[in-house]
């Protein structure tokens, strides 16, 4: 078990170094930092002096190792646009994205799982068929369209919920969270649904097909032949066996909720890292973009690690101590 964790951590580090190289390369290939810093009137001597001072004449590898080392300690340089350390800028925005991702993840997983199990058990029922058909909309409609539609319906026409912004926040251990206030929560509902709808339908369809698969297995048949109640079979035997593949996909989906909240955050002007990234792209704010790239990689790698560990708690066959 410990060896497994160490091995996975080593793999995670390799992945991060590869992604780190890409975000490092952004500085090299997107614009010229020296030009940006000195302006057009600089002399060749000024340039040479600055290049020497910034270490740009060192071998690429040395520069990369220096970059990665600094990144590990949270130092991504200074944002071109706002002139503040990138780490600070991102940390200020990250709670907004994380709480939004958390809420939409909770919605997606709880609703997706419940509906998936329901549609599998009542596979020929009218309601189940209706849900399945409707879920096609969730899978096929683009996120921004759903967001705009929800704004049109609930903010513009019904006036129930705010159409943009984060609302009030409350400080929790020094972190400002909107999820803790009523106003903030109201502001979160629409973006959270928008962000989670696709994941929800995906999880639902996956749970359903896995569940149908499991319900056909011999051990379910044997459980029925032993007279166990339908409830015990569905929830005690079948559901747990659907978890392994479902957790894999759900984990990855949660990663993409965080990583690709960009569109939703733009539509709802949600002040998270996604919106920060879009602005950074517009201003060619390379330090922010490169830090964002690494952040996304860290989130994915972490979630994958958690998913791998969850397998062990669910499936005893994976434990190394087979006797």
């Amino acid at each position, binding site marked *: 078990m410990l060896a497994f964790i160490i091995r996975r951590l080593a793999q995670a580090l390799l992945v991060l170094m590869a992604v780190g190289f890409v975000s490092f390369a952004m500085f090299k290939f997107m614009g010229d930092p020296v030009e940006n810093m000195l302006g057009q009137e600089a002399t060749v001597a000024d340039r040479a002096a600055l290049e020497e001072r910034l270490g740009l004449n060192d071998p690429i590898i040395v520069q990369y190792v220096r970059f990665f080392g600094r990144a590990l300690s949270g130092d991504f340089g200074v944002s071109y646009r706002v002139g503040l350390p990138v780490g600070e800028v991102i940390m200020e925005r990250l709670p907004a994205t994380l709480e939004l991702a958390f809420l939409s993840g909770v919605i997606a997983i709880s609703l997706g799982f419940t509906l998936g199990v329901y549609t599998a058990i009542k596979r020929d029922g009218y309601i189940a068929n209706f849900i399945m058909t409707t879920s096609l909309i969730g899978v096929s409609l683009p996120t921004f369209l759903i967001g705009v539609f929800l704004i049109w319906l609930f903010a513009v026409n019904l006036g129930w919920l705010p159409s943009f912004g984060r609302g009030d926040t409350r400080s929790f251990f020094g972190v400002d969270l909107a999820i803790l206030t009523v106003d903030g929560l109201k502001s979160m509902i629409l973006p959270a649904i928008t962000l989670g709808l696709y994941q929800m339908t995906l999880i639902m369809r996956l749970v359903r097909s896995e569940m149908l698969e499991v319900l056909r*297995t*011999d*051990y379910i*048949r*044997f*459980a*029925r*032949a*032993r*007279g*166990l*109640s*339908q409830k*015990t079979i569905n929830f*005690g*035997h079948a559901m*747990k*066996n659907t978890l392994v593949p479902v957790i894999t996909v759900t984990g990855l989906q949660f990663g993409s909720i965080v990583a690709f909240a960009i569109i939703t955050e733009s539509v709802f002007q949600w002040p998270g890292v996604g919106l920060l990234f879009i602005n950074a792209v517009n201003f060619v704010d390379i330090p922010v973009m490169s830090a964002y790239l690494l952040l996304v990689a860290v989130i994915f790698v972490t979630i994958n690690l958690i998913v791998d560990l969850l397998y062990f708690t*669910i*499936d*005893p*066959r994976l434990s190394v101590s*087979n*006797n």
Partner: protein
Amino acid sequence: MSNSPLLQVSDLIVEFPTRSGVLRPVDRVGFDVRAGEIVGLVGESGAGKSMCGSAIIGLIDRPGRISGGEIRLNGERIDNLPEERLRHIRGKRIAMVFQDPLTSLNPLMTVGQQLIQTIRTHLPLSANDARARAIGLLEEVGIPAAAARIDAYPHQFSGGMRQRVVIALALAAEPELIIADEPTTALDVSVQAQIMALLKRLCRERGTAVILITHDMGVIAETTDRVAVLYAGRIAEIGPTRNVLSTPSHPYTVGLMASTPSTTGSLHTLSQIPGSMPNLRAIPKGCAFNARCGKAFSPCFQDIPVLEPVEGSEVACWLYDPAYQNTKETSGASE
């Protein structure tokens, strides 16, 4: 043993509606099982043996259904019971053992959890009592160190041991009848005999009746009291095992016996029955076996034979019909 049978199956018909018409994997099958008796159902794959077993325990997969006949357990009809009533019969009065012990157990639950759950579904026992009973059952089926092994997961057992666990699960609530559907087919030959002996011993001790579904004539010979030979969803021959095996009457049974290796007889080339069992979509008119039968004659291509008593067994074959006793010698022809 009382005289009224424990299980009465009469004229059982199982049908599967498909796009290309209704299939009948079981067609007017009838047999009795007396308390404590071991009855074999033998036949090729697709002969309808497993479907009979599923029908009796009420586990036919949709869209299949019982469309005719009756199944009675101790005189009470069980084929038309609502699911909830049927559930209390399954496991409690009729249990089932499946072919593949590797897939019969839930991989994510310990064998103890599965046993205790089954026991407590049917018997009013506390968790501790159920656990004690589960350990007792595991000991009875020959799991060494049962008290320790009860908390192991199925993958920690070998195939033979898992089938023992499956048998323990089937016996958990002391059923009156166990349907064993090819219980040893998936096991090593060396383990097969052990499992069959175990099943036979436990059922004899408890007076549990068994319906043994198999294609293995050797297992039939060693284990069963009576045997029904199925062909294309119908019973070709049924009778006391010794009788059917030593003096087979139906040409199909004769063929089956000739194609089974024997340890006592001299070594000779095994014969085989030519052709294969007809597809359910294309069962020939008359006797389903007519195309493969060396003794088929005119009525075999016209009408379906019914079971008639022949030499202590019952046989569905026109050869033994009194009306044709004289003609069959002259007009014998095969396709």
